[in-house]
């Protein structure tokens, strides 16, 4: 007796490359051969999707490229960019790594708080940052956190590499700039300065295994009372994770005292139009998003 595979995957071939270059070569070849190929990391989005998919709707996949054996993708390293400290996460870094890596815990405790809010331990040990980004769910938790940290993704293909700031990565609901043959090799984030006000707040129905109604990440830095940096990522309030560029423009260069709640709220109204769905209402989401942004800004 054998075991079945989820919809459309019974005849799928699997390749397990050991390096990013190998993975890119396999992807490129599949593309040239017109084979339907997909990357697979923790499987916490892909396999659930396939499992729930009606069999008649499932487009069969010819090839899956398993990335869990690519060690380069699970590295966490440090780099100095123009005198500022950055951390670089391989695309295959898991939430569990964020929760247990000493450097991350010391430099950016917000990522630990975010990771703890993702699903539960069994999801955190498998789910990866690149998987979260590539899935492009507007309710993703990793994405807003990385966005507030000025995340920049490095996309690699057989032909070369390019970098894209996370706030330009998402084009529309579940549409991204990722091209066929490309994979997310790295995510670079800037470590907030000591003394920065760093916020992570996920509002959901229960602490574990809940999709957010609203989630907000924020990084506020000040120099002698003037806000020098106000970066955000907000989830579940628009078709894509939103950077709230209007609030950033309003706040940077001002003291907190010079800001007033009504003006900030008006800026938020211009940027996001949250919808009603099974998890919450648009009105509640907007109310919560405004309150969270204000709290993130306030000393």
């Amino acid at each position, binding site marked *: *007796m*054998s*075991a*079945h*595979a*989820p919809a459309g*995957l*019974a*005849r*799928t*071939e*699997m390749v*397990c490359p050991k390096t990013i270059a190998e993975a890119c070569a396999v992807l490129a070849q599949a593309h040239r051969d017109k084979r339907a190929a997909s990357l*697979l990391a*923790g*499987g*916490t989005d892909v*396999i*659930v999707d396939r*499992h*729930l998919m009606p069999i008649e709707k499932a487009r069969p*996949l010819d090839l*899956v490229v*398993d990335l*869990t054996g690519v060690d380069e993708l699970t590295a966490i390293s440090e780099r100095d960019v123009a005198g500022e400290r950055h951390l670089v996460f391989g695309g295959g870094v898991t939430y*569990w790594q964020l929760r247990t890596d000493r450097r991350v815990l010391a430099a950016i405790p917000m990522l630990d708080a975010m990771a*703890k809010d993702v*699903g*539960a*331990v*069994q*999801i955190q*040990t*498998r789910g990866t940052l690149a998987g979260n980004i590539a899935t492009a769910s507007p309710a993703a938790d990793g994405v807003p956190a990385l966005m507030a940290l000025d995340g920049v993704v490095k996309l690699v293909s057989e032909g070369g590499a390019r970098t894209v700031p996370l706030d330009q990565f998402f084009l529309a609901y579940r549409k991204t700039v990722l091209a066929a043959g490309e994979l997310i090799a790295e995510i670079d984030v800037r470590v907030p300065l000591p003394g920065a006000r760093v916020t992570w707040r996920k509002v959901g129905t229960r*602490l*574990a*295994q809940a999709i957010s109604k609203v989630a907000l990440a924020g990084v506020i830095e000040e120099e002698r009372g003037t806000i020098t940096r106000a970066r955000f990522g907000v989830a579940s309030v628009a078709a894509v994770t939103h950077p709230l560029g209007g609030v950033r423009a309003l706040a940077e260069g001002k003291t907190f005292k010079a800001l007033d709640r009504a003006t900030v709220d008006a800026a938020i109204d211009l940027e996001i139009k949250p919808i009603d769905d099974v998890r919450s209402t648009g009105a509640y989401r907007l109310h919560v998003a405004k309150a969270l942004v204000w709290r993130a800004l306030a000393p």
Partner: protein
Amino acid sequence: MIRFKVNGTVRETDAPPMARLLDVLRVPLGLTGTKEGCGEGECGACSVMLDGVPVNSCLVAVGQCEGREVVTVEGLAHGAELTPLQRAFIEDGGAQCGICTPGMLVAAEALLRRNTSPTDDDVRDAIAGNLCRCTGYQRIVDSIQAAAAAVRAKTSKASKASKAGGETGA
């Protein structure tokens, strides 16, 4: 052929690489201790350890396990000798109908292997992905804490004994 270690023994399967680890464990390998609750990562009934960390086997493709090491609930006890967690679940009412118990034991085992002095919050975090419809969770938390205490008692006894041994030797 996909080859990987299950509970210490190398096993092989000719299942398609995208077959779920859960199905391979239960059907061709006959290890039915691992349960399917939801099939979508929410309930934890299918928890196993993969290279020492707890995962939901309904979300792992068996092809991803090539060369790796899986421990299921069947692999926890040493023959007839139960683990402290298994004993505590029996003695302290951590198991009622039992459907969540294999997953709970695996998740809790993973916790105790990294932390033998967990707070109740640590315990609840470790089993937050394991649903139980019977116990109300408190008895499970108590069982895990009782097992942790038993493990600590055993290690402190062992280290005292080895210290005492060291002193006589010196």
